[in-house]
């Protein structure tokens, strides 16, 4: 009992550490958790209970944590602008996904299967232009005479999802499954319009900020006199009136005995309507900071020069000039498509191939993976795969399953090199969990 408590506690601790395209997870054999990627991929046993499992995904297009943050001589952290800037592209993304599935239950009766689960998900998508960093790290002098984009794109969602899946084994060559999910929004921050530019004039460096920016938030991001502030404590909420819906659909085909073809779409039509604490922040303005304006004629009459007002006017938040209002809104969530094939080479080895596409805000990201699974022992299965993910070719994934009686412990990552050193990785994911198989 002592160990069981420690294990469960430790699993939850992992959640606090980090954040899955689930490519490697997709290849796990005989595991109910793989139904996350395709509801038609079902375990062999007729009854399986999924205990908590946790997945994370961290992706930063422009450097890993340790590149950007370095320890200084005082034991603190320094933001290393030089290294960060050297890895920036014109557009950069920081994506963090945390998923904690609290429970899952699968039961098969005849050709029908019932698959119920609950999970909590936090999705964060942050896209920023390189100038967003360069303006600070290199200064704005390099952009004199230019109009520079500084508008970040933020999409953050935290929500509960309860899924009820239904599968049907059409025959021994085809399984169909559908899993509608009801979503309960916890918190959101999302940009609708994201135009924000800053320009520095050649004359005497007058600074002009031009915006057409809209940020919707339910409290993750608040705006006050001092500007924007993140409030992640607002995510400490249960079920709310912010409801939504999504749909998973999957099919598994076995045209021949040793070949399985899996096609799925996950989180199709996913949308959440935000009502509780929903506010809309808008800025549509053009403001120029000219420096302290001096009334020359008054100076001639003996007035003193006073620069103290410069402080307020040069504050970017003032230049943005945001207005706020209460209003409900809705957000869409990313949808994913998995298309894979598995070929059983021998009793112990199988080969896998996968195409993955994620679509969000009219943008698609693809990943490709090839892998091999080996049943090395009756209690131990391991898989190795290589993936080309999001324009990166250095992804060697690993998954493994231990089977101890009814207890099934599994772990999967798409980048084993950095799975245990997420701060050294700019693209890392993983999932670990337990299932009970009856």
């Amino acid at each position, binding site marked *: 009992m002592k*160990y*069981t408590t420690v*294990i469960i506690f*430790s699993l939850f601790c*992992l959640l*606090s*550490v*980090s954040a899955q395209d689930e490519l490697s997870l997709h290849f796990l054999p005989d595991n109910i958790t793989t139904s996350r990627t395709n509801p038609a991929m079902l375990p062999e046993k007729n009854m399986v209970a999924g205990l908590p499992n946790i997945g994370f995904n961290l992706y930063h297009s422009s450097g890993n*944590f*340790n590149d950007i*943050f370095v320890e*200084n001589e005082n034991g*603190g*952290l*320094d*933001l*290393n*602008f*030089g290294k960060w800037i050297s890895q920036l592209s014109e557009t950069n993304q920081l994506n963090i996904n945390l998923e904690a599935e609290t429970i899952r239950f699968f039961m098969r009766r005849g050709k029908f299967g019932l698959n119920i689960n609950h999970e909590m998900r936090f999705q964060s998508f942050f896209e920023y232009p390189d100038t967003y960093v360069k303006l600070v*790290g*290199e*200064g*704005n*002098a*390099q952009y*004199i005479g230019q109009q520079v984009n500084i508008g970040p794109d933020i999409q953050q969602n935290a929500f509960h999802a309860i899924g009820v899946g239904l599968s049907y084994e059409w025959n021994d060559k085809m399984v169909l499954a559908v899993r509608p999910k009801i979503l309960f929004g916890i918190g959101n921050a999302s940009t609708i319009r994201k135009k924000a530019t800053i320009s520095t004039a050649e*004359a*005497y*460096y*007058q*600074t002009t900020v031009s915006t057409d920016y809209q940020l919707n938030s339910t409290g993750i991001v608040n705006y006050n006199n001092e500007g924007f502030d993140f409030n992640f404590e607002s995510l400490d909420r249960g079920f709310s009136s912010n409801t939504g819906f999504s749909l998973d659909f999957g099919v598994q085909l076995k045209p021949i005995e040793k070949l399985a073809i899996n096609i799925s779409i996950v989180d199709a039509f996913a949308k959440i309507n935000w009502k509780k604490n929903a506010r809309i922040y808008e800025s549509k303005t053009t403001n120029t*900071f*000219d*420096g*302290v*304006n*001096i*009334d*020359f*004629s008054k*100076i*001639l009459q003996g007035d*003193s*020069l*006073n*620069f*103290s007002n*410069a*402080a307020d006017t*040069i504050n970017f938040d003032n230049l943005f000039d945001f207005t706020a209002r209460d209003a409900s809104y809705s957000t869409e969530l990313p949808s994913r498509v998995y298309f894979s094939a598995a070929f059983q080479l021998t009793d112990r080895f199988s080969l896998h191939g996968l195409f993955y596409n994620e679509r969000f805000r009219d943008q698609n990201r693809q990943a490709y993976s090839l892998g091999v699974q080996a049943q090395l022992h009756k209690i131990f299965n391991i898989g190795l795969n290589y993936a080309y993910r999001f324009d990166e070719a250095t992804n060697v994934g690993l998954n493994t399953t*231990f089977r*101890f*009686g*009814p*207890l099934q412990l599994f772990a999967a990552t798409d980048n084993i090199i950095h799975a*245990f*050193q*997420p*701060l050294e990785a700019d693209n890392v994911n993983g999932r*670990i969990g337990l299932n009970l198989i009856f």
Partner: protein
Amino acid sequence: MKRYLPVIYLIIITIQLLLLSSCQKLDKLDDLSATDVDAEYAIPLFSTDFKMGEILENFDENSSVFFDENGSAILRYQGDFTSSGSRDIFDVLSVVNNIPIPLMDTVSALPFVAPNGVMLDYAILKTGGFRYVFSSEHEEPITVSVSIPSMTKNGEIFSHTLGTTAYSGTIPVAGGLLSPLDLSGYTLDIPQDSIYVEFSAFRENSGFADTLAGFAVIFNDVTASFIQGYLGNQVFEFDRDTIEIDFFENWTEGTLRFEDPTINFMVDNSFGFPVRSSINVLDIISVNDRIFPLSSPFIANGIDFAYPQPDEVGCVKQTFFSFDNENSNLVELLSAVPKAVDYDIDGLTNPDGNTAIRGFMTDSSLLSVQVEVVLPVFGAVSNYNVFDTIKIDRFDFDVDFEQYGAINYAEFKLYSESDIPLDIDLQLLFADQNEQVIDSLFTDLTPIVKAAEVNSEGNTIAPTIHTVLSRVTEGRFERIREEARFLFLRVRFATPEDGMRSVRVTADQGAKIGMGVKVGVIK
């Protein structure tokens, strides 16, 4: 199952240990600083945007700024309004007041000799009283009649009759009118400087006219509302006055030339006779306290003021006279850079002594003079230096560059966009609270504004843009930020072509001047 739990535990603990360093690092994100920064930030510091119209209107306290139909600026400094009334001249009538005038005959011509050569033709009395006394040797009541043929009102001669029954057995009998008769409104003709008075006595018992032993008349409080005649050589004295010109109070050196300056005399006159100026003092006082008397033939010869003709009683005639570069050495004197104009003026009546000019005046006649100095801002200036001290608050822009790194330089940029036809050079020194110079932005006079292009008439035809850079090191920048409390400015103005080209300043000419700074930060 139980036998596998330690293995599972060990796997998870291993994973956690591997992640432990990551956890610790993340905790430090709250206290983040920056490194590997090599940045250059450019921010605007201040800007000013002005029109010459606004500047000139606020430049000094004493001037008024006007703009002609072309928008050309004109500085106008006016002296006090000074005037002189008719009281002095009217005093000539007082020679008849309160003096008993004995009449030697029943018809007498009382002599009227006004001072200062005044020869009155007639006067319309505003106030006045008339009394008379007599003595009678007649042993009976008499009736006394008196009339003044020189004094008429509504066509009727002034007259008065007084009956007496005072004889009581002793002679002579004294009598008379002790309460004065009101003479206001009467017209007093004074031909040949005489006032004709007649009297008679009628013996009531005897029934015939007779003479009196003595008769005297007394006028009192005789004043006039109108007089006409030759009013002699009088002097209207006006107060001495000084017109302050503080436009150049900060001037230190350089040359200055106004193209069309004037000193104007504006005279209002309702006296109906000739008046000529008598300019006792008309000096230009320079900013160096040197005194330059204005030289002009009109100072010696005087300026004749216009006056109303006899059929223009009550009219005010205006005279506008200008000392300018045609009739005086004003342009030359103003090149000494004026700070004041000192003047003392009188007015002389009938300066030519022509007694044939019979003038007039009323009790409300007035002669007023106002002097003004008019300086059209049209001219040339070279090496014109001005010093000024501006008190400043701390250079606190509240942009904490140090949070990103150490400042290693600051490069100031002064930008100007001007359509004012003036070159402006600036030397700017920073001084601490004890007014001790601690640093400078421009060590020497440095061009900061280039004169706008002008045509042959001195009018701006194209604006100019000019920038100048000044770099200071981190140490100097910090000291300026921390200690500077005063700016010592030396500004040098010059019109194009080293001050040889005259230019015209107009209300809508202006300049935009801004200063920005590039700050280099390294960490």
